[in-house]
């Protein structure tokens, strides 16, 4: 199964729970950025299920090797400002990020979250000049938790995963962007029955409660 990097922790736990509930089955994951995963699948990497961090990359699968049934949304995520523990710069909201003395890191508009971040800045009417346009959220988390950058825009789940090394500053709903996570069984999946069972498990109450522990919202 191929999954977006932002699902690493939650899907590892989902996989373990699924294997415990279905003795004799094995779930193996390939975690990378959604675009890398879908590229791999379309180039022939054997994959039964694909969980994407956005609809755009899921569309690449639909238009690529194809899906067994229409993708379904299994989780949502939203943006949050990540700052060092204790919020030393006293950042209270998006408007503060426009301060030129702050070192702000964001993701490149080439990746989904960078695109969402730009939408969010536009909606807030704030002009932010990041010192770095990272390729993935991990780069932002590293730079903020090491204290080299003052703030960054990441998913709420990333702030939660950074646990005691960082904290989040909420972004109001009216300017925030909701990221949609779709999942689908690939066309001609080698283990179609098991793949469908896993998909059902992710959408079940048990599966959803695991995802919510990691900060994901309901579909």
């Amino acid at each position, binding site marked *: 199964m191929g999954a977006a990097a932002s699902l690493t922790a939650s899907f590892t736990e989902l996989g373990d729970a699924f294997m415990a509930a279905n003795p004799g089955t094995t779930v193996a994951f390939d975690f990378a*950025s959604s*675009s890398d995963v879908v*590229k791999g699948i379309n180039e022939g990497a054997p994959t039964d299920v694909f969980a994407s961090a956005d609809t755009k990359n899921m569309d690449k699968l639909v238009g690529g090797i194809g899906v067994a049934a229409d993708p379904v949304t299994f989780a949502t995520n939203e943006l949050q400002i990540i700052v060092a523990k204790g919020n030393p710069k006293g950042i209270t909201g998006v408007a503060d990020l426009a301060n030129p003395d702050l*070192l702000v*890191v964001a993701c*490149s*508009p*080439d*990746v989904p979250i960078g695109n969402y971040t730009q939408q969010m800045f536009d909606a807030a009417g704030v002009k932010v000049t*990041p*010192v*770095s*346009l*990272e*390729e993935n959220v991990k*780069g932002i988390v*590293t*730079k903020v938790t*090491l*204290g*080299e*950058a003052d703030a960054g825009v990441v998913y709420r789940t990333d702030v939660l995963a950074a646990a005691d090394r960082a904290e989040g500053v909420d972004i109001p709903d009216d300017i925030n962007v909701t990221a949609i996570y779709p999942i689908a069984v690939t066309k001609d999946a080698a283990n179609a029955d098991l793949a469908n069972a896993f998909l059902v498990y992710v959408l079940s109450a048990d599966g959803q409660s695991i995802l919510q522990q990691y900060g994901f919202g309901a579909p």
Partner: protein
Amino acid sequence: MNRRDRAQRPPAAAVALALVAIAFFALPFAGLLWRVPWSRLWEVLSTSEVRTALRLSLVTSLIAAVLSLLFGVPLAWVLARVHFPGRRFVRALCTLSMVLPPVVGGVALFFSFGRRGLFGRWLDSWFGITLPFSTAGVVMAQTFVAMPFLVLTVEAALRQHDGRVDDAARTLGGSRWYVFRRVTLPSVRPALVAGAVLAWARALGEFGATITFAGNSPGRTQTMPLAIYLALESDPEAALVLSLVMIAVSFGVLAGLRERWMGDPR
């Protein structure tokens, strides 16, 4: 065919294995060339982002190569000629960055030269110098991973170099510096060139330490490898075109320099 040629002809098995090796290196490039969207070549290359990234890559990698020469040659000489306790450990230390995953190298640079780093905090508070997110940070990351290639190459050559020649030059009245410059260095010139080119090529392709330590900011820290990696996310065809440019530049230099400078017989 005279007798000498026949004697130099390698065994068939070696030729067969060498051909496999050549295919191993050639096929990925063939695969790449096959996918390059030739019709979009000019469109991609004419964008200002690409030219900016290419210029930044060339400038920073050349500075990294010069810095590697400036500091790496004396280091190689010390490692090859000076006997001191712990020399093996110093050599291992100075080449560790070759085996370190570059991302870890970038984080290590943060820990030492970042604004919260062991030394970086003093640079920041005393001189107002912050290396992360700067072009200087790019050069630093590149030099960090590239210099060992020069050091190892030059050190190996200096070990092969017959020290008695230097001694003879000294007895003829040459100063230490004169002998080093006019006798020792010329005798290892092929290794100097090879080492400098290796270091330059490594610096040009540097990705992990750069994006970690210097970040990705067009015009300031976005080198070609970073631009290529990001383009892979949004426009894979453009990424192929950019890769082609890097391959062409590196291939030209590697193929061109060897014959002219490296004592190649032909």
